[in-house]
């Protein structure tokens, strides 16, 4: 996910519960980030002085010397202490740094991936009433209605053998090819992947057998079958 378009700031300084967080843009060069941080801290030195700042590197892996440069800039320009470095799933740069320290390359051997079980679809055998929330790591099948106020989320497709009147979110982890099937779709809102749709005002055709919602050309469309 690219949060910053080109031409945006090379980094963002945010505040959270524990203090400030510096989040560099994934595509910005280190020189631009250091320059930007220095400028911001000098501009508001009184505001930042003596505070702690975390470095969020989940979007952009860093080399250790880059972290050191940034840390030095923080302390010199604003009297800001580097409190912690946050890293994401990509540990490769940590391995390469440890490897350099040891003088021997570190290599990670993972358990073979295909033994991980495939997530099973969730089957709900009752009506989902207001306040119910169903989450599925795969497909989700509801044998009953989904009433207003209920929420059904699935990483894959959602199939409702009843009326869908509540909120359904198919492809909740970003799968745009996910679909929603129901005997009748008349929800407050439906979501597929990152798109949200509200049904049009006014009457709708009575479904003959069932209805299906899918993404076509960047919008959610409901087809009556």
């Amino acid at each position: 996910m690219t949060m910053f378009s080109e031409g945006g700031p090379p980094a963002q300084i945010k505040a959270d519960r524990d203090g400030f967080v510096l989040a560099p843009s994934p595509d910005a060069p280190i020189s631009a980030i250091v320059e930007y941080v220095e400028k911001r801290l000098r501009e508001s030195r009184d505001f930042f002085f003596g505070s702690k700042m975390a470095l969020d590197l989940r979007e952009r892996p860093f080399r250790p010397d880059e972290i050191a440069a940034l840390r030095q800039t923080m302390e010199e320009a604003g009297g800001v202490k580097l409190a912690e470095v946050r890293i994401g799933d990509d540990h490769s740069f940590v391995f390469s740094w440890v490897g350099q320290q040891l003088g021997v390359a570190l290599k990670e051997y993972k358990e073979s991936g295909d033994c991980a079980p495939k997530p099973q679809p969730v089957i709900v055998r009752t009506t989902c009433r207001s306040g119910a929330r169903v989450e599925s790591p795969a497909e989700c099948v509801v044998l009953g209605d989904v009433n207003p106020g209920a929420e059904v989320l699935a990483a894959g497709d959602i199939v409702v053998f009843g009326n869908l009147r509540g909120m359904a979110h198919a492809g909740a982890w970003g799968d745009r090819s996910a679909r929603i099937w129901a005997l009748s779709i008349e929800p407050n809102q439906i979501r597929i992947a990152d798109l949200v749709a509200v049904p049009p005002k006014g009457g709708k055709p009575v479904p003959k057998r069932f209805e299906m919602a899918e993404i076509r050309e960047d919008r959610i469309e409901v087809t009556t079958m």
Partner: protein
Amino acid sequence: MAGKTIVVTSGKGGVGKTTTVANIGTALAKKGHNVVLIDADIGLRNLDVVMGLENRIVYNLVDIVEGKCKSAQAMIRDRKLSNLHVIPSAQTREKDAVNPAQMKSLCAELTEQFDFVFIDCPAGIERGFKNAIAAADVAIVVTTPEVSAIRDADRVIGLLEANLVKETHLIVNRVNQKMVKKGDMMSVGDIVTLLSVSLLGIIPESEDVVVSTNRGVPLVHDRSSRPGIAYTKVAARLEGEEIPLDEDNGVKLMDRVKRFFMG
């Protein structure tokens, strides 16, 4: 003799739970059953007001569960019917003065002597609700034909199912058939389709309700009151009688008469 424990609940406030408890309870007592009504809305006591018994309260529900009095001492006998009793709630305490286990043992004790134990549930789904439904065999969910009340009723039915209350019935209160006909109000059919529980009765909207509440005399004592008649039918259905539902439907009946005259 093992009676039935029936909780009357709704989720949303102001839909007519207390009125429903007072009227169904009174109607069943009129038919000769031994009935006790428990006000479980601790801190917001009002079943006693609707029953017109406010000035006779000495002990209350919290006193019973805390062992300050026997359950028989806290029961107030109705002014007209000797087989109808009310256990009022405490006005100066909070919901956590009682826990679900205490409600269960109290109701178990009461069902030994009474045919019907009615529990008037507070609005909401927090502690008071959990206390009220703990001992229930049967739940009556009251709703009005408003989207907000129906949404809350749906949530409550879900919670009742999750708490293993086996039997759930629905009463749709304050139905105005004229507005339904004009399409300004949801019809009872739509509500039942959405909530998918068995319908126990339809209570028409009426000004009589306010008058009866203020006087402290339940509607079922008045034979000419339409909601009173509807509540009497609900009570009969609870006894197991089969009374068709559309009879409640005052306007429809009138229409039939009209059609007959028009030929």
